[in-house]
């Protein structure tokens, strides 16, 4: 098990575990049965019409989704399980109390899912973290002070670029997994002068049925942790 560095003010705004599955016995009553087993820790139950976001030439457009999720929320709203026929997510919003605790939450949710649903096949697994990092000013020079990953620009394009979006990905574990990072400047919001969103994602897209989720998430976390530590400068991390 990898030891997680502890930061006083980590930039993590959400951690998400995703399980895409096929079941043999899903019925409309399944979300209610699941609630019966999780309601002690997740007393709030809500239907969530999925939102879809299209990021195109005209910017982000929001449209209603078609995947009806049932949300189960902890009393303080910081831990959320979402369930639909074919998808389970375990979301953790601040305050994040560390990987060990989150891993326990994930495994507990998986156990309770298997109590009510017979999983025929796992199609995909994913572990994602979203980190909001304030670079204080929308400028390429400030961006480079905080991130170790940035484009190399020729001298002739030596402008003070102020909007950045980067996406990188690499196959891992003989191509069964994918490690991805996305960094983008986002709109200013309360408490942030120039926020950026760094998404780290590890997903098993092939042979997902062959792994044990409890072992896979350790590897996923280890990959995400290394990516996090390597993508940010010491200058940036000094603010956490």
């Amino acid at each position, binding site marked *: 098990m990898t030891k997680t560095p502890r930061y006083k003010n980590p930039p993590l705004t959400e951690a998400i575990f995703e399980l895409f599955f096929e079941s043999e016995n899903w019925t409309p009553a399944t979300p209610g049965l699941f609630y019966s087993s999780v309601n002690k820790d997740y007393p709030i139950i809500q239907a969530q019409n999925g939102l879809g976001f299209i990021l*195109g030439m005209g910017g982000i457009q929001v449209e209603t989704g078609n995947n009806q999720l049932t949300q189960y929320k902890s009393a303080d709203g910081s831990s959320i399980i979402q369930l639909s026929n074919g998808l389970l997510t375990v979301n953790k919003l601040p305050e994040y109390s560390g990987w060990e605790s989150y891993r326990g939450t994930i495994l507990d949710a998986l156990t309770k899912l298997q109590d009510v649903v017979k999983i025929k096949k796992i199609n995909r697994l994913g572990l994602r973290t979203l980190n909001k990092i304030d670079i204080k000013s929308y400028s390429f020079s400030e961006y480079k002070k905080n991130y170790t990953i940035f484009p190399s620009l020729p001298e002739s394009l030596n402008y003070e670029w102020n909007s950045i979006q980067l996406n990188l990905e690499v196959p891992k574990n003989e191509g069964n997994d*994918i490690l991805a990072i996305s960094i983008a400047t986002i709109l200013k919001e309360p408490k942030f002068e120039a926020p950026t969103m760094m998404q780290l994602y590890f997903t098993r897209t092939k042979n997902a049925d062959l792994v044990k989720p409890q072992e896979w998430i350790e590897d996923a976390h280890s990959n995400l942790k290394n990516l996090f530590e390597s993508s940010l400068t010491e200058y940036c991390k000094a603010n956490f």
Partner: protein
Amino acid sequence: MAETLTSISRFNSDSVIKEKRNTSKVASLDCVNYHYTTTGALNKDYAYSIELMRLGVRQKLNNQFHLQNDLIEIDFLVRNPEILTVVFEIKDAIIKEFGASEIALDLQSESVNWETLFIVVSTDAVWEKANSFINLLFKRLFKTQPEVANKVNLIIAPDAI
């Protein structure tokens, strides 16, 4: 349309697999990929990140409204995405009727099942004109989208500027 890998933002290999059946844009099934699609049908993947849903609503609002409590209004719009469209329609109608106005969103909530998003407008309009506008707007809204009309309210503060 020219599309590049940098104009995108989505993480889902399933999406790529589905998309490959329809287009040759995707280079490899081994990539998570981030293709902007004209249909957007595969972008539902964002639907299960709370933070990305908030970000999407925030980007859509684009600082055009003052949010009384910020996350409270954002989360309400995440739960009720159909209201986003209506909020912009009302804003456009307000600007057309009264000119530039300051518009705030203020969620009043007694419970999750009893929430109302107040759209609070500060204008220099006279009371009679404001009242007539509200009546007409909600008459139309109740006729076309009654489920939304029950979740929003409009307050026009005349002579406020």
